[in-house]
């Protein structure tokens, strides 16, 4: 699977969970690797790119989560 496709899947998962459940990085890695049948390292790489691009951010609310940044 192409990295861009994995990134879209990750973003979609985080977007879908907004207001329902805060996702940890490991939740994302587990879910996407199981759904797409790919290694967790590939998901980790794609997630890293999304974070570096600023499309997703880390937040802390009693634990560290991955979320969509608030609109400015």
């Amino acid at each position, binding site marked *: 699977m192409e990295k861009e496709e994995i990134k879209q899947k990750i973003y979609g998962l985080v977007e879908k969970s907004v207001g329902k459940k805060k996702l*940890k*990085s*490991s939740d994302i*890695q587990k879910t996407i690797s199981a759904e797409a049948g790919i290694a967790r390292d590939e998901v*980790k790489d794609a997630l*890293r790119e999304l*974070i*570096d691009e*600023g499309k997703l*951010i*880390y*937040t*802390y*609310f*009693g*634990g*560290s989560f991955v*979320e969509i*940044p*608030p609109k400015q």
Partner: protein
Amino acid sequence: MSEMRKTPLLDDLEKGPWPSFVTEMKKAAAKSEMSNDLLGALEQCYKDKKTHWKHGGIVGVRGYGGGVIGRYSDIPEQFPGVAHFHTVRVNQPSAWFYKTDSLREICGIWDKYGSGLTNFHGSTGDMILLGTKTENLETIFAELSSRGWDLGGSGSALRTPSCCVGPARCEWSNIDTLDITYSLTEEFQDEMHRPAFPYKYKFKVSGCAVDCVAAIARADCAIIGTWKGDIKIDQAEVQRYAKNGMDINAEIVNMCPTKCITYNGKELKIENEDCSRCMHCITKMTKALRPGGERGATILIGSHAPFVKGAQLSQVIVPFMKMEPPYTEIKELTRKIWEWWDEYGKNRERIGELIERKGMRDFLEYIGVDPHPAMIKEPRRDPFYFWTTDELK
């Protein structure tokens, strides 16, 4: 500068012979509006008998999930200078060795972009820079990283590894604590800056069982220097200690936790097979006794301060591991430990709590370590012995 805040309650904390953080804050408040408001905000907390700080949120620097701890005042209209008062954690050098130049560099950056207040050091070991605004974070990070500094760990991540002074200043160190700490920090950069664990994970490295960084009580993974072999005894020096007034039976023999030492007035003997390498006798008779044989480390797992289930001390999982660069064995073992924790750990569950919940047997089976009599939960308890159904047939 506005007028200095009045702080009658905080002023009480300046009384007495010891240094006071209030005095230091007042010095900073004389030249920083932020520190002046901090004094006012703290006075208000004492007055109201409750905190006015909110913690966490979405602050950080791009690409990193740790190193910045968001802090906000819930009464920003009264204390606008501390409406944002974020903490920045900076990865300390191994064993906290600095040149004054580097300290001036850090303080210069902090005076320019932060409150000027610092905490050297936080309990994990990082340099703690107290109080800055959200809009300054990226600039601070750029200033620090352009000078070779990096942020430390925070949140559900590997925390900045720390160690004792080790061989740099201590002749009793059995391992190169500084090099191990540096190597682990370099190896696990991703785990430190991109939080992906159920909760925090700390490495602390001590050169010997004296454990100057209290690794056994504070680190999820404690690496404590030890040796394999007999303690070397210089009998002439033993006699010199006795001649100089040391009561060897009271101070050494009777204090040995495994009672493996005898002294007949002429000769000191040690049953090395029974010795637990606690270092008590060696630190008391530094000229007469010293470790002998092969050097390495004992690896322990699971300690933490009270949180979900109360405090725990670490338990031995590897009685002796050679510690030589590039430290492949400890790094591979760590990755196995993290795999198991990732698989079964609940949110905010430390590795020690998970071992308590799932059992040491499951843990050891997964990480591929055989049970050993040295694996005891606490002093004077039975070791763990496990037999699977297959082994009993």
